[in-house]
Structure formats: structure tokens, C-alpha cells
């Protein structure tokens, strides 16, 4: 079958079972958009900014585990999408992002809307391609989907010049992908796994340190079983929230800069840290020389480069987490004695009783933590939660009762403000049955506010809960603590009327000052099932606590700080 390059793109997407593409058309990608117009196999969601298209594809991918697809034009279309690519790269999100490029004959001439796209995306993608012949398109697209979703997942960028999308060539998508230079490890080394389990058997104070890899490899069920079988306490990173149920008696919340006292103390006192798909991010480890000082370390990761990158590992295991955890259970079932770790578990529980995650209620002001807990009480498992970046994000991680993997969708590694709303659109498209809630701040929400139009037009009822403190809260918190309260450019007293703003796009808005008003607004928004903005006026000076100051040791936490 001979077809055009543009038709090949459509055929490839169909062959990959893509049901949704997020994108924004433009000059260089018009041939492909012409083919999109003619087909009925997948839907296209027009976002109102290219960055949002990529974040929406990320939300779609993160909640479903499938590859997200975004499409953009050359030049500014592409550069707008770069933040999304970088975000997906940092959080290992499987994406295929297709961009138009100026025709081959114009490449290198500073043509209109020309930019060296693959040159820019090289450092923020797992892999990228500039297609210079339509003959290569079927192979390249097939490789792109394979690379994006295998091994440590990540975004793959395919840049296609306009004349290549018009070129007529044979399309054969049946040749299996064979990459001699790319063979991700799936099975872990069994001898190494045995050694690790023996180390667990010998340990007195072992601790599971669960990372985002547990979610990416769909290993949550196995990890839950392993934790239960061994009776060893576990902490989960921000990226891993929901791997264990919030009410799992062995879950000791989240470690790190805004981790719980118990989680950070457990990280500091353990004698054997069992890292399952975590990458020892600086927001988790704090001061490295003091990190897990008494511990041997087991590190399971699909990416060999993550092992011993930050912290020297004693038992490295390269492989897909799900496989490795299954192997671990087979060996552990006959050697591990739960009772051995009971005294340790008690001391960890004692830490938790000493300083549990908490906040002080105030009769006049709404506390953000209460709002998040309340969303949890009202919606719980029925909601998928996305967040933006800042204080509200940390409060969500601390206080929402996550009960399943892929329930929290957030920008962890890159920390991209403006991620939440478009991601929530992608989440809702992929999982229409559940309520899609974006918990955001008054700073973040304005960074992709134009997506109100996308959501309203396509009837994608995302509920934005703005924890509004008229501040760029997290930065203000740092300014208060480390810059002698010089609140440089973080006061956001000047704000739009969010109710009127929502209304002007065809959504619904609420302003909330009290608990009763909040309940009424959330219930109404869920019931009406339309795009909503709930402007929740919270205590302006609430801070995220506990806090390990940047570069400090995990066990040196600030537990309380009253700003006003």
C-alpha cells in the first residue's frame, strides 16, 4: 500500500491503538491535520496551548499506563511543548510527541517557524528522530512507541518535515521492532535477588523505600503483598503515593523535605534500606553524608544508571520491579520471619505517635489541609487527583487518602507549575468514570488557565480546587524561613475574580470561605458535572510542615512554624 507520510502517521497511530491525540495545528503539520480531519478512529483534543497538549498527554499516560500522544507544529509550537517533554522525561512518562518541521529544502535556512527541534529535545527526551525520508516513517513511529513504553519509560519526539508528510511511499507496519542497540533488562539476576533477601533476613531494622517505579511497572499489587508478607515498614515517595493503601498499617507516609517525622526518622535509623524503584532524589535524601548512615542499601531499578548514582548501593538489582518483587516473594516466603522486625516496627510507630502529620484548626480561617482531607472524605477512591506545584502539592501528598496506584498525577521531578489543569483534562479523558480533581494554587492555576476553553468545549468536567492564599506560597515560605521574611515578588493579592473567569469560559465558579461553603461547592460541582473552579480562601500564612531545610539532614526537621 502506497500512502503519504501524513497518512502513515494516522495509520501508525491506529495500529498502536491510540484513542486520543492532544494537539495544536500549524503550518508545518497541516498535512497531518488534514488526515486527522478525514479519519474517525481516534479523537483529537485541541488544547489552547502546546504545553498543555503535552501535559494532557502526560495525564492521560500516567493515569492509564498507556503511551500518551501529542502533536504540534514547528518553531514556536515545538518550543512551547518543550516544558512538557522535559516534565515527562523527569517523571519517566511514556509519550510520543510528533512535531511538524519546515520542508527538507528549507532546513538550515532560518526559514519561517524553523527551529532545530531535535537539537533542543535531545537533552529532554528518551530518544528523538528527525525523519528525512517517508520510507523510514513506519519504522521510526513503531520504534518510538516501543522505546517510549519499554524499560524506563520516557518521551520520544518525532520531528517530521512538511515535504516528508506529502511524500508517497509504501507503508508496512508489520515488521517487528528490532533494536540491536537497545535491550532493556526485564528479569533481575536471581543470585543477586537471593543475596538481597538474605540481607533482609539478617537485618534488624529494614525499611522499604518505594518509588515511582512501583507505579510505572504496575507492581503495586506485588509490592503490597511483599510488604504484608515480610511485615517490614514502608515509606513511599511522592511519585509512589497510592502504591500502598493509605490505611496500610505498615505504611509510614512519605519521606523527604516535607515528609513525615516518622518516615524521615525511619529513613535515618534503618539498617537496611530496600529501595524499590526510587531514585534517591535530593528532595528525599537531604544531606547525603548523613543519609541512611547506618544502612546497607538494596536498590532495585530498571535503569542501571539510577543505581549508585547518588548513594553507593550494596545490593544492586537491575530489572523490571514487578518481576524482581515476584522473585523476592518466592524466596522470602520460606526465609523471612515477621516477628524479627516487630521491635523495629514498634519504634517506627512510636515516632509516628510522637509527631504525626498534623495541623492546627482555626475557627476563623480555612486550613488547606482540612480541604484536602475533606475532598478525601467526600470522594476518596472515586477521584483521580492531579496537582500543580507548590504548597498545595505537598499538602495533597501528606493529607489525601490515596488508595490505589495512578490516583495521584503530579509533576514530581521537574516541578512544573501549570501542569495540573491540562493533566487533569488528560486524566478525565482516559478515565471518564472517575471525578477528575485538580488541586492547585492561585499561582499555578494561571499558568495554563486557557485550558478552561478546552475543557468546556470538549465537555471534560475537571474540578479545579484552588487553595488560594494570595501568595506564591512555597516561595514565600522559603523567604520567610531563609530570607528574613523579605517576600520578594510573591504577594499575589491582585487576582482575577475566579468565579467570573470560569463563567466567562462557560464553566462554573465558587468562592468558599467556610467548611460548609466548601462542602456545598464541591458537591454541587460533582453533581453538575461541568468544568468548575472552586476558589478556596485559605489561611494566608499556613506553611508546609515538617520541613527539612534544603541541604539539611533528614532527621533535623522543623516540625512547626507559626508565621502569623
Amino acid at each position, binding site marked *: 500500500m502506497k500512502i503519504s507520510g501524513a497518512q502513515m502517521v494516522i495509520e501508525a497511530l491506529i495500529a498502536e491503538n491510540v484513542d486520543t491525540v492532544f494537539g495544536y495545528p500549524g503550518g508545518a503539520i497541516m498535512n497531518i491535520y488534514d488526515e486527522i480531519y478525514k479519519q474517525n478512529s481516534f479523537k483529537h483534543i485541541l488544547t489552547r496551548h502546546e504545553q498543555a497538549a503535552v501535559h494532557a498527554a502526560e495525564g492521560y499516560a500516567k493515569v492509564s499506563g498507556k503511551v500518551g500522544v501529542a502533536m504540534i507544529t514547528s518553531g514556536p509550537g515545538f518550543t512551547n511543548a518543550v516544558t512538557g517533554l522535559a516534565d515527562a522525561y523527569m517523571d519517566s512518562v511514556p509519550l510520543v510527541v510528533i512535531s511538524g518541521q519546515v520542508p527538507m529544502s528549507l532546513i538550515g535556512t532560518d526559514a519561517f517557524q524553523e527551529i532545530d527541534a*531535535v*537539537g533542543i529535545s*535531545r*537533552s529532554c527526551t*528518551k*530518544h528523538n528522530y*528527525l525523519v*528525512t525520508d517517508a520510507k523510514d516513517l513506519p519504522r521510526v513511529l513503531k520504534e518510538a512507541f516501543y*522505546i517510549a513504553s519499554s524499560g524506563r519509560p520516557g518521551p520520544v519526539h518525532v520531528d517530521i518535515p512538511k515535504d516528508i508528510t506529502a511524500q508517497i511511499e509504501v507503508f508496512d507496519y508489520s515488521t517487528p521492532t528490532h*533494536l*540491536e*542497540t*537497545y535491550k532493556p533488562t526485564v528479569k533481575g539476576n536471581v543470585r543477586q535477588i537471593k543475596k538481597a533477601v538474605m540481607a533482609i533476613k539478617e537485618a534488624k531494622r529494614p525499611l522499604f523505600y518505594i518509588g515511582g517505579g512501583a507505579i510505572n511497572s504496575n507492581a503495586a499489587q506485588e509490592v503490597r503483598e511483599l510488604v504484608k508478607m515480610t511485615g517490614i515498614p514502608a515509606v513511599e515517595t511522592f511519585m509512589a503515593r497510592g502504591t500502598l493503601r493509605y490505611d496500610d498499617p505498615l505504611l509510614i507516609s512519605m519521606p523527604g523535605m516535607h515528609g513525615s517525622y516518622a518516615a524521615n526518622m525511619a529513613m535515618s535509623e534503618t539498617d537496611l534500606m530496600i529501595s524499590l524503584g526510587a531514585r534517591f532524589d535530593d528532595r528525599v535524601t537531604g544531606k547525603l553524608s548523613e543519609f541512611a548512615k547506618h544502612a546497607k542499601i538494596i536498590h532495585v531499578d530498571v*535503569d*542501571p*544508571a539510577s543505581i*549508585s*548514582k547518588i548513594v*553507593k548501593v550494596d545490593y544492586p538489582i537491575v530489572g523490571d520491579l514487578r518481576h524482581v518483587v515476584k522473585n523476592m516473594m518466592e524466596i522470602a516466603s520460606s526465609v523471612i520471619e515477621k516477628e524479627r522486625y516487630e521491635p523495629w516496627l514498634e519504634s517506627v510507630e512510636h515516632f509516628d505517635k510522637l509527631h504525626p502529620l498534623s495541623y492546627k484548626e482555626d475557627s476563623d480561617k480555612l486550613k488547606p489541609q482540612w480541604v484536602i482531607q475533606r475532598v478525601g472524605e467526600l470522594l476518596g477512591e472515586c477521584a483521580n487527583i492531579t496537582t500543580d506545584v507548590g504548597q498545595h502539592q505537598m499538602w495533597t501528598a501528606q493529607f489525601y487518602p490515596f488508595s490505589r496506584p495512578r490516583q495521584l498525577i503530579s509533576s514530581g521531578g521537574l516541578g512544573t507549575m501549570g501542569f495540573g489543569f491540562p493533566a487533569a483534562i488528560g486524566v478525565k479523558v482516559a478515565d471518564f468514570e472517575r471525578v477528575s480533581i485538580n488541586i492547585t494554587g492561585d499561582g499555578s492555576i494561571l499558568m495554563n488557565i486557557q485550558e478552561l476553553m478546552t475543557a468546556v468545549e470538549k465537555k471534560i468536567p475537571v474540578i479545579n480546587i484552588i487553595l488560594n492564599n494570595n501568595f506564591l506560597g512555597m516561595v514565600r515560605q522559603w523567604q520567610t524561613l531563609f530570607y528574613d521574611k523579605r517576600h520578594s515578588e510573591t504577594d499575589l493579592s491582585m487576582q482575577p475574580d475566579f468565579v467570573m473567569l470560569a463563567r466567562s469560559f462557560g464553566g462554573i465558579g465558587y468562592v468558599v470561605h467556610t467548611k460548609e461553603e466548601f462542602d456545598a461547592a464541591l458537591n454541587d460541582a460533582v453533581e453538575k458535572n461541568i468544568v468548575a473552579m472552586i476558589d478556596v480562601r485559605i489561611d494566608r500564612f499556613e506553611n508546609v510542615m515538617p520541613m527539612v531545610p534544603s541541604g539539611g539532614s533528614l532527621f533535623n526537621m522543623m516540625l512547626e512554624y507559626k508565621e502569623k
Partner: protein
Amino acid sequence: MEAVRRVISVVVLNEASVLSRITDLFSGRGYNITSLTVAPIPKSKYSRLTIVTSGSMRVIEQITKQLHKLIPVLKVIEHCDAVEKEMVLVKFSSDNSISDIETVCNAYNGKIVNAGDGFVIALVADESQRMDNFLDAIEHFHPKEIVRSGTVALER
């Protein structure tokens, strides 16, 4: 941690922009490149790069792992016992005593490879350290131009 010198060979698919993937990795992650040589491997679809780098043992380990992570990379060889050579071309004015230059070149297994109107060009290929010595030895001939290649290495 103390910095060590390492010679790393990388076998990569010979395709567009593969060299930038490697150099971007080094600059993006703050690794050093002392020298880099690249040429296609005959009768194959691969090229071979030889990179001389330095860093702490942890950095060297990361370099090899990160290189291996690049999709078009087939093989990464961290050399420990290799034959290493690099090459230098030096242009001298023929005001010098040509036989004196030749004598020094001979001592370093080199020779004069070209002579023209008022100049001669000498070629020497040897280990990096020997190359430094050679360049010291010819300094008093006031070379007009020096071109030094990167290292190539082959494990014994």
C-alpha cells in the same frame, strides 16, 4: 574523591546526530572530555568513538552507564589494559637543521612526511605521555604549527 583518567571506547550506530548525543550527554551532565576521536568501523553500520575523560570513580561509572543508556549505543568499553596511540603533525621552517629534526622524530618513532618551499612536516604517533615529551623536545625548533589528534585505543 580523586579524579582518575580513563579511556572509554563507544560503539554507536553510524547515524545522523549520534555524535551530538554523546557530546550533549557530557556537557549536560558536567563530565570532562579530554579528547574524542570518531570514525566509522569498516564494513559495518557502526562507528567507534574513543573518549579520554577524567573524574572520580563514581563519575566514571556514571559516564559508562549514561553512555550505555543512549539508544544508538551498542557497546561501551572502559579500558584498563589497552594499547593507546595519538598522532601529531608538526610544521617546521626549513631554516632549522632538517637532520636534527629527523633525529628527534626517529627517537619517537616518527618521520618527516612532507617537505615544501621553506617547510617540512613531521608525523609522530605514540602514547599521550610520550607525545608530551616529544613536543617538549622539539620546542627549540620553534614549530610553526602543531596539530594533535585525540587518542585511539585497543584493549590487549
